[in-house]
């Protein structure tokens, strides 16, 4: 599956739970929203190899 995080793109093989993907990318569930094929998903959902995934980071500084 293709995963977009900001300007970076990652490729992952096989089926993954959203929370596993966040863990692999060292991203915190408290501060990120995962969008699968245009739909917002919760951490217990599964992502399939053909899915396009976008992760949006919520934390801002200043």
């Amino acid at each position, binding site marked *: 599956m293709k995963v977009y995080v*900001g300007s970076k793109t990652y490729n992952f093989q096989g089926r993954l739970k959203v929370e596993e993907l966040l863990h692999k990318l060292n991203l*915190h*569930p*408290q*501060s*990120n*929203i995962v*969008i699968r094929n245009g*739909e*917002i*998903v*919760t*951490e*217990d*959902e599964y992502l399939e190899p053909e899915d396009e995934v976008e992760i*949006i980071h*919520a*934390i*801002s*500084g*200043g």
Partner: protein
Amino acid sequence: MKCRRCKDKGISSKAIIFLPHHNLSLCKNCFGEWYEYRLRQTIKKTRMFTPGEKILVAVSGGKDSLALWYALKKLGYKVDAVHIDLGIKEKDYSLISREKAENLGKRIKSHLHIVSIKEHLGEGIPELHWLSGRSPCSVCGLVKRYFINLIAKKGSYSCVATGHNLDDEVATLFSNLLSWDVDLMIRQAPVLPEKKGFARRVKPLVRFTEKENLLYCLIHEIDYIREECPLARGTSSLLYKRLFNEVEQTSPGSKLRFYFNFQTNLRPLLPNKSTARLKSCPSCGQPTTSDNLCAFCRLKERVRSVEAQKKQKQLD
């Protein structure tokens, strides 16, 4: 995961978020309703403002302030906004931020005041940071406070609403606690009453996390600047936010307890030692604790004198 609210009504719908601190899973529609109900309740319970009052929202172009502006307008409050163009050229940060604010204003048909720092001071925040010797965040805060207060007073707004969220407030409280800065802790509250020359300041998003504000923007297609402020990289607030997210993960509700138990249990006990009296700046008339020019006018003087020196060198 299913939406718990819909389930209670006998409907089955897919949740888009699980809020562990409320033990609540919500679908798109229920999240929007929950957010707006909670926002209205926060405003009412903490007596921030009433529906008839004229409110000025300070919008940066980021997700929190734009979500606030949109939600207040949707809930029927009398709201306008102000955007301060900070003159940060790196990655077109200020240009994009301004566009996001202007676009939302047009979309929701709400008036937006725009103040360009460069037009008023001749320089943007990066240059003012070097000229003043203050940190970028400090000089940015100074000029923002000055212009937002000026617009609020000139436009006869009852209060200024900012997009500070729970994560911001927790990070600030933790930072003040680390240095036991009692004066700053006293001033940290969801409502700061009007003082001589200073408009009332309120933080209606204080019960919402950054993630909840981001989600509100996404479901309402509110286009915000995703880029981090290039001058805020490496700030300690980002570290504290990461730290508290770790705490929240193992102990849901910690952020809300940390901030609101401080407000109810400790803040009322803190001695208000501030003896500083507010005076009017002899140059601009805005409130200041200084006997001479206010910090903003001193910054203005500094810019003028550096520019005069530059011109003199060119003539020489």
